[in-house]
């Protein structure tokens, strides 16, 4: 959850701060526990601004993102997490795939 407020131009994304998650495991769990309506709302809010968000983030080297940019960066990673659900499956789950927890990310 974002403790730091988002940078000024992107404060409209504040209602979606629960998607600002640091690890792939958390982002995956968030997608799988969200309804398609929630996922679509997040996508609809962020996707039109994604280019501007990335342009903002790309002012900084990736390993030196300032604190207020960090949650924004996590939001973009969550967007990637849900993009197939929105653009392809219209469903939070992949069809005909193994149980997601069995596809284990080794951190």
């Amino acid at each position, binding site marked *: 959850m974002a403790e730091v407020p988002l940078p000024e131009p992107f404060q409209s994304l504040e209602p979606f701060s629960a998607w600002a998650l640091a690890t792939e495991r958390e982002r995956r769990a968030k997608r799988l526990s969200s309804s398609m309506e929630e996922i679509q709302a997040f996508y609809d809010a962020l996707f039109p601004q994604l280019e501007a968000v990335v342009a903002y983030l790309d002012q900084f*080297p990736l390993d030196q*993102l300032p604190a207020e940019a960090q949650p924004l960066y996590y939001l973009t990673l969550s967007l*990637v997490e849900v993009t197939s659900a929105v653009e392809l499956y219209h469903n939070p789950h*992949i069809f005909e795939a193994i149980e*997601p927890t*069995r596809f*284990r990310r080794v951190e």
Partner: protein
Amino acid sequence: MQAATENRRWSKEYPELGTGPVPAESCISPEYFELERERVFRRTWLNVGRVDDVPNAGDFFVRELAVCKTSILVIRGKDGVIRGFHNVCSHRSNKLVWEERGTCRGALACHFHSWGYNAQGQLTGVPDEENFHDLDKSKLGLSPVTTDVWEGFIFVHLGPQPQETLIDYLGGVAEQFKGATFHKRRLTHTYKVEEQANWKVALDAQNEAYHLPFQHRYSFPGMFVLKDNRYLRLSGVKLYNHHAVWSTTYNSESTPTPTGALMNQLNTATTNSRLPMLGDFDFFVIFPNFVILQFRGIEDDYYMTYNFWPLAVNRCIWEIKFHFPPAETAGQRLSQEYLKHRICDVLQEDAVAHETLQTGLNSRAKTHLILQDDEIQIRHFHTVLEDYMGFFNGRGH
């Protein structure tokens, strides 16, 4: 793009492989699996990691090799040399290191009686040493395992005396990758899937492109159906002594999704180096259980590896690793995350097939696998396997 119109072209190029069906018994027989332990996994070079896993002196990782009934410790010595050892204490054979990875600072101590070993595997400390009889520490180091490094990939050989050096074993594959800039990519993501499938069922299922337009119709709709190549026939097949590679070209006609289009723009170069590729996508099977997958990127290429680790006749671990150029910006990192995400969707579909295939094979309703010409690499794999096993030609039972 090479026209893919000629039927059965690969069998004309490699007539010695024949065209008949392949026995399915090798994937379901417990007896076969027991023989595989000795005849395949103790007679071949096995990839266990990369030099990046042990960047500094003292760094180590442990690889559980259930198929060889052993645990291997790979450690970089103070002299910079990467060595492999059986992960077994010289005192009474306790398992020495329990962590998956770490760094040896001073000594690795056995949990049982605290016998200590340095990063070169030498025994350095024995508590109450004076109470032993004729103990010669210099002769009681860890038991070494033949270990070698090729293009940054660490291999071990568990046979008493490897018949071929690693480079000879790799043969034409080593030639193909001479000077490849693998080291300019970084391991970014690792996944492990424990599957109810024989390791070869999982490997065979990945080892062709024929299934892509069908099995992955949800995750990549239309992507693999090309106007002049609607069954995604391969653009190249090269069969080596033990190993094989096949290649495909990308579908330039397909329209990316909105996110995909944006990610393509963000996918900019950071290494200024390409990988030595044969097509847009290359799948190298390095016998027995290691795969290098090369992907043509927009400005930079990236690669993945698979290791299929047998646990039992019908169980294996599929280990998946992504290696991308180091991302310098959030945009670059995001485009890599996107590629990884799309590929992982496909792999989660693949994993289902590994298990449904195994279920079907276990029923023994069918005795053979039927292979088309663009599955010749599977035929080749089973031919190499039989060369090691001699199961169906006499030495089997």
